[in-house]
């Protein structure tokens, strides 16, 4: 990366001269870039809701007729839906609909780690969990799950993506593969019916929460967050946008999700530990950052992207950021799955798998100051961890 920086000033000079030759009519408006983003957020949550709806249907079919085949179909649907959700995490960290302090559903959708024994049996405690406690919890329904999550004012994590993942895969007790919950858990095991009810209820709740986000960002609805976001000052909106991708890039993705797992070497200290889907989670997060910058949202987009806006002020910086982000995404795709193999004790740091994680961490760390610089180039001051 260093050599390209040496060349950069010359390129920048040329481009600046070229742009000086143009009149202002070519400039990208901040408002248009904000609108592209806001419509893209809506398109992304819509795509997530669609694949989660397919998951919900697959879960209903599975619970109605629990076989290994219907279970596999539900698992495949979860994996597909997970990718669509993962990119939307670039819309967090500025108190928007996903994670505002009043009713943002992030904690209900995606909280981690999973308190498995709060939900169902685990190795070492076969009678654990709400599923196996009909005396205390005679009825499992959406109201109960929501109430339990709010008990004590903090999240008990009995809902969301990872709850569904746990109920489909079970604990990952296999060093080399994902969890292997048998379909018979939903046929003739203890409390099989209650387990099925829990799974369908928690899947329904997922749709409710995703629907809440789709509605909040609906460009046609009016009187919602989309309207607020696209009518407040473009500086404020852009500050939110840059804060979201900047915070995801280093603090959340490189830090919390990758460095902690890499450094702590606790094999299941990874986000999708039951399904062994963590590498895809990581790729989706990195791709979400790229998506916000390039404007290539689900379904495509016509308006100017954030990169177009940056390029309008400093095309060299825009190119550098685009290259760095592209490099990070590529690096995440090169981490061999499953992720947890690289977290085991005894795997040396020189192992290619561990090196691939560290490379991706480093690229994500390195691109974060460039995100901050790009915001500065637009006259914005953003603060990310």
């Amino acid at each position, binding site marked *: 990366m260093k050599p390209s920086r040496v060349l950069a000033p010359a390129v920048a000079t040329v481009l600046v001269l070229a742009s000086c030759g143009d009149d202002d009519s070519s400039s990208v408006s901040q408002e248009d870039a904000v609108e592209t983003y806001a419509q893209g957020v809506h398109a992304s949550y819509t795509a997530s809701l669609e694949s989660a709806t397919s998951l919900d249907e697959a879960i209903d079919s599975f619970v109605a007729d629990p076989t290994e085949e219907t279970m596999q179909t539900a698992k495949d649907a979860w994996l597909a839906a997970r990718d669509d959700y993962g990119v939307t995490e670039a819309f967090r960290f500025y*108190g928007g609909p996903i994670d505002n*302090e009043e009713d943002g559903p992030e904690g209900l959708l995606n*909280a*981690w*780690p*999973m*308190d*498995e*024994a*709060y939900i169902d049996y*685990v*190795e*070492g*405690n076969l009678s*654990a*969990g*709400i599923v196996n*406690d009909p005396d*205390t919890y005679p009825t499992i329904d959406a109201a109960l799950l929501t109430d339990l999550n*709010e*008990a*004590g*004012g*903090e*999240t*008990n*994590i009995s809902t969301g993506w990872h709850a569904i993942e746990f109920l489909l895969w079970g*604990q*990952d007790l296999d060093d080399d593969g994902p969890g292997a919950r048998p379909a018979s858990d939903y046929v003739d095991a203890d409390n099989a019916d209650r387990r099925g009810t829990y799974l369908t209820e928690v899947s329904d709740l997922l749709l409710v929460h995703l629907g809440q986000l789709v509605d909040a960002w609906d460009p046609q609805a009016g009187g919602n967050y989309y309207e607020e976001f696209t009518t407040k000052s473009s500086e404020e909106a852009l*500050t939110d946008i840059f804060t979201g991708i900047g915070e995801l890039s280093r*603090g959340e993705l490189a*830090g*919390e999700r990758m*460095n*902690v797992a890499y*450094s*702590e070497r*606790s094999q*299941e*200290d990874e986000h999708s*530990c*039951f399904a062994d889907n963590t590498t895809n989670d990581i790729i989706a997060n990195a791709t979400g950052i790229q998506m916000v910058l390039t404007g290539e949202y689900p379904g495509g987009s016509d308006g100017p992207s954030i990169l177009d806006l940056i390029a309008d002020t400093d095309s060299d910086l825009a190119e550098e950021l685009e290259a760095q982000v592209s490099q990070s995404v590529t690096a995440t795709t090169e981490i061999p799955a499953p992720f947890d193999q690289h977290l085991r004790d005894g795997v040396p740091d020189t192992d290619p798998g561990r090196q691939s994680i560290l490379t991706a961490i480093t690229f994500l*760390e390195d691109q974060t100051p460039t995100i901050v610089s790009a915001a500065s180039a637009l006259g914005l*001051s953003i*603060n990310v*961890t």
Partner: protein
Amino acid sequence: MRPSFASRVALGAVALVAVAACGGGDAVPELLGGDTSRDVADTGSRAFGFPAPTLTNDERRVFEIGDSFFTQNWVTAPASTDARDGLGPMFNAQACASCHLRDGRGTPASTGDGELGLLLRLSIPGESDNGGPNPHPVYGDQLQDRAILGVPVEGELVVTYEDVVGQYGDGTEYVLRAPTYEVEGDFGPLGDDIMVSPRLAPQVIGMGLLEAIPEEMIRAAADPDDTTGNGISGRVNEVWNPATETTELGRFGWKANAATVRAQSADAFRGDMGITSSLAPEESCTSAQPECLDAPNGGEPEVTDSRLGSVTFYTRTLAVPVARGADDADVRRGAELFEVYGCSSCHTPTHQTGPLEEVGIVALSDQTIHPYTDLLLHDMGEGLADGRPDFSASGTEWRTAPLWGLGLLEAVNGELFLLHDGRARTIEEAILWHGGEAAAAMEQFRAADPDDRDALVKFLESR
């Protein structure tokens, strides 16, 4: 830990800023945490969550590990995420961040769903083996109002408030709220000799800087017999440090009842979340609580030394926000009054942290800091007294609370809950509760003109 080339350059740049900031005058310093201060303008509720900007990249990665184990929930054992299991069996919170909300303070609001961030220490007369409070034989040393499935909770803390009306010197009325604490215990009566002490989770910024103040400087400021005759007798708390297994100077906690950030963190892990560590290896279950004793644990200990170290590093190096208002006339006037009224006699504005060989972290060493505390115990009067001794602290003594971050608490927490139990809803209320050694300073504030009172509050809000 030697400074890299990059970090030396960075320190140089910060030094220039510091010189510029000094244009505001020494009485209203801006870089409260020295070079570790961070400008958090417009970050709202995230203001306390940033690492010191002078950390190296390797240190940043340790900070991230600490952040993760501080912020994410602990879960019931056994769990797949075996690094994070062992919650309870009884507990007050699932994560450090549940009470230290966004690295800020706990909320004492009684919602009927249990307290988040206000806990109740329990003891009976006498001392424990290490000189600390003597735990209740049935309930232990802290009321735990939550538990994992299948384990009963200890009971519930019920807080009621009664209005206390007073008047400023100009006749303006004010209303304080005086709390009463009751325990609805599920393991039988607590007995007549029970002593309780409510403690609110404080903000966790700048902890490493407080730890880096040389011990001799703290001791030098102590005046237990008030030889200066100013009515103020700062005392050192001498507390048990489980790491060194000796009695040492206490710095942390509302009664300076913990010697180090690490010891404080280990105490909180065990007492608040039921997470054992090498420093606190026993689950907080008593022999009267068989379900608690029989519940599975998450390893021995549940939080490893390495992870405890990372969490400790995290709270040590959370950045202190840069102060605001150095050029504001009211703030400058308030800073003068802070001296004139005698607030600064205990809320000592400035300290110098020790050298690297003592502190161990480059970023925290040799820094001029402005925490506004002497870290000493003072008799704060009957109004605030908990009547529960804690090592050498008496039932009326509290440690001078640091004031940095005060003006951002509302942005971080949404509401203001000040003093050891959060009873004060405004800075004015917090000042008006000051009694005992602080009564004279409080009285000057109470008697002052409204303009002067406002100026003092504006100064405090700028910190």
